[in-house]
């Protein structure tokens, strides 16, 4: 695939980079990234990946744009309120970069549908806002052996990790299982600084691009935490958990499922 004159100009600042070049840009154009959740994290990730020239972007979201979203979900604009988020996002992506093909999935990610979608992509970005989805994405990426970027934001804090299934620690290596529902603050209770989504979602896009180009060191086996109030970025070193119920040698989880019974003892918590 040869770059067109317009593409050469559009991507010239990438091509100049020693580590990208025309070869790297062509790789990006041939790559496919799935973004689960077209909300706070998914918005900046989608915008930057589109501008970057990632050839295919998949968007999963079953929600419509709400006025309360606009404080942080920068891909959606005021006139979009009430329209499906995937449609709103697709229109912005098309406006930024016509090179990008967008596949929209106006549905909720579940054990029944997620694996088949994940399978079609090279990298997955978790832009969801609830633990059930986060574990589901982690598990689906494990079963499909797809690399993905996990992130979460709350109040003034963000966290981020990249998972290479089978090579690096997965979300379940660290957190085992979703917390009981009573322990989880809802967004209305907690609130979130809008710009935090931009910071963390952009970092997720960075990891996707690095992975696709084979550049640098991915954020694997390190959980990056960000405190917007103190401006501290900290990377907490982690390892694969040999007792991980998903990716450990004696894995108890053998297929993708939506819900699991809550923890009732200390097994696997050593």
């Amino acid at each position, binding site marked *: 695939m040869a770059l067109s004159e317009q593409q*050469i100009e559009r991507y010239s600042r990438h091509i100049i980079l020693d580590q990208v070049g025309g070869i790297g840009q062509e790789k990006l154009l041939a790559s496919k990234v799935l973004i689960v959740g077209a909300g706070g994290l998914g918005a900046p990730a989608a915008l930057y990946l589109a501008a970057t020239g990632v050839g295919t972007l998949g968007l999963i979201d079953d929600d419509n744009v709400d006025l309360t979203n606009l404080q942080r979900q920068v891909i959606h604009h005021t006139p979009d309120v009430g329209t499906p988020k995937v449609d709103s996002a697709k229109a912005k992506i098309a406006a930024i970069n016509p090179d990008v093909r967008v596949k929209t999935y106006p549905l909720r990610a579940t054990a029944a549908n997620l694996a088949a979608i994940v399978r079609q992509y090279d990298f997955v970005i978790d832009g969801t806002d609830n633990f059930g989805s986060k574990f589901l994405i982690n598990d689906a990426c494990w079963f499909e*052996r797809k690399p993905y970027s996990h992130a979460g934001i709350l109040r003034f804090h963000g966290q981020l990790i990249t998972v290479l299934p089978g090579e690096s620690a997965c979300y379940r290596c660290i957190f085992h299982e979703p917390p009981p529902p009573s322990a989880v603050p809802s967004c209305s209770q907690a609130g979130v600084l809008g710009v935090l989504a931009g910071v963390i979602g952009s970092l997720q896009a960075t990891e996707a691009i690095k992975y696709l180009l084979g550049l640098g060191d991915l954020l694997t086996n390190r959980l990056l935490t960000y405190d917007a109030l103190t401006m501290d970025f900290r990377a907490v070193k982690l390892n694969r958990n040999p007792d991980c119920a998903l990716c450990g040698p004696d894995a108890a989880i053998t297929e993708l499922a939506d819900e699991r019974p809550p923890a009732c003892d200390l097994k696997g918590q050593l």
Partner: protein
Amino acid sequence: MSVSASKPILRIPDSVRRDVLAYRAHVEKFLTGETSAVAFRAYRVPMGIYEQRTSGHYMVRVRIGAGLATGGQLRKIAQMSTRFGNGVLHVTTRQNIQIHDVKIEQTPDVLEQLLEAGLSARGGGGNTVRNVSACPGSGFCPNERFEVAPYAIACAEHLLDDSASFNLPRKFKIAFSGCPSDCALASVADVGFFAVERDGCKGFAVYAGGGLGPNAAVGVKIEDFINGDEVFTVAEAVKHIFDAHGDRANRHKARLRYVLKRLGEKEFVELYRRQKQRLIEGGLASIASVRDIFEPFHRVLPASHAASVPLPPGVIAEKTPGLYTLPVTLNLGDLAANEMLAVADLAEKYGCGLIRTTQLQNLLISGIGAGDISAAADELRWKVQSLASQNPQIVACTGAATCKLGLCLSRGLATAIADATRDLPAVNGPAATIRISGCPNSCGHHSVAAIGFQGKAKRVNGRLMPCYDVMTGANISMGEASLADRIGTVPAKCIPGMMGQVMAKGSVDFNLLRRLIDEYGDFSVEFPEDYFRDFGSYEPFSLAGRGPGECGAGVMDVIVLDLDEAKSAAAQAARLPAGKDRDDTIYRAVLSAARALLVTFGLEPKKDREIFAEFAAHLIDPGWVVPETKDLLNRAVDYRMGDIDSLDDLLPQVDKLVERIDTLFKSLDAALKFRAEPVAAPAAANSSHSVRRIDLRGVACPLNFVKAKLELEKVAIGDVLEVLLDGGEPINNVPASFASQGQEVLATEPAGDHFRLTIRRSK
């Protein structure tokens, strides 16, 4: 203190003078494109002018014969550095002084103006007779048998006047030591002369075939005693042997020590004797004469200087009572141009007007009267800010920051050791000298050190860690010289702390050093992240992008690690019963085999799939490994991904692969190219050898670079692209951009009203 002698010490022969004056025309031809970059380099390097790592910047290596310079000469060098260079000078371990960051079009001015001060860079580099070095103490050292510098100077003048001295198989180094202590490192020179007096006659014992660097060696004795006036005959005879027998085909095996190794000591010495006899019969011995170079610098002290005074630390008493030498201890040989001016002033104000460059990369101001020494030391401290601690003395090569061959950042280590030992009690004597080379090339002379460090890369938990071999026990002295032994390998990051402990008590505790090396050399422990970064670097340590060249030796270690792993995994798999363990072991063998040779291409992929992809691109596609290996790699990836359950049936193929990699490894030449025959035709369709061209006239920056780069990606690695560019910004920027990304800019030549840029794709 006025000194009559602003006249140079070494007299530059007219032949060299003519060469220097002819140089300008060569530069002009290069600049107008009449001479290619490659042809020009062959002319430039023997003129003592090297291209630096930053493209377009050049270093001029000024020879300081016998390490003796006048104040006027130092002023001229300093002035050249300020006017044409970066204002920082560098004293080398072979007593030269380097001017850095000179533009190529200004190099003729520099050379011509140096000539006015009786200085030359001719033979500063390339396959030439290099600077003839001598004890820095010659002329004042109380231990010297007699003054050797006059012989070194006469020998240099004689050899400089012979055009054959500039076209040898490789470099040729001569050193003169005034006593068996061998401050001039004559034991490890191509030809080393030691002052010996026999029956009241001044003469020399002569050693030949020594050298530092890969396969460092101590010279063998070729003469018990020669008369002083025979030095030319001896030097000339050895030079003839080198000229005739040095391996011109393989520059990495070209030095005289390889001739010695090939012929054996007996035949080497025999050959030398016959050659010397021929020269004597030809009447050569009478060509040159030795003159008293120190005569203009002799001082008669006023009586006031006889009084003994408390001496500032580090000051050396000369053999003439009442005279002292003041050392100017530099930080790894660096000093600013204005500081060099100050040193010149001090030498003339307080001393005899002579300044010496030393093998430890320092300067010495000699001939200072007892009454002046304190004032001179005070003034020095005040005017030269970059004085280094004398304890310990640290010598380091330039390191991977500026050297294309380097592995480790040796100067960073030197600074860290200096920091760790700064406040410790002084350690006296040669034990206090630490020598550091960032790679096996030994530019930091680690193999002659009391404590030496040689940079290497080691794979720890699958990642590369900057490490150093620790060398001790060198004994450099006439007739008894032996090189340092490796006593262990430790991570770079633990060395400063280790040296702090070892030198804590005012002496070097070698027993403690050994114990600490055992402790720190245990690579089975967990290492902090910082250990995987070199000094002053925020990037993980990597060999990626390091050129092949002479760094071969360091890279070899890394290859052997992988190859051994591949072999042992393959052997182990053969013994294991079928099952997951066996399959995993087979996978490990494939992975290690695939990774082993990638470093020779400057690649260091970390992820498995990248390793396989690079292996396919660099070893399978060009035909070094049979094309079927691709299936093997695909199967391995499938297994890794869980798509297939077993690799059981692949073991025979894996064995063949490991064997092939071993064959290729053993066939590597010193430039890290395979000498083995390819086993398949290159897969690349792009086999036509016509040069690819792109016309980018009228295309502005940076889009011209973007387009040229895209075009370069279409040519095969090793092939050439021609780019037509406009003058001005485009021709200034585009070649520099390519060079900075590691591509080889072969030529930039004017072609009509535009320019033609020729680039070889090197990665």
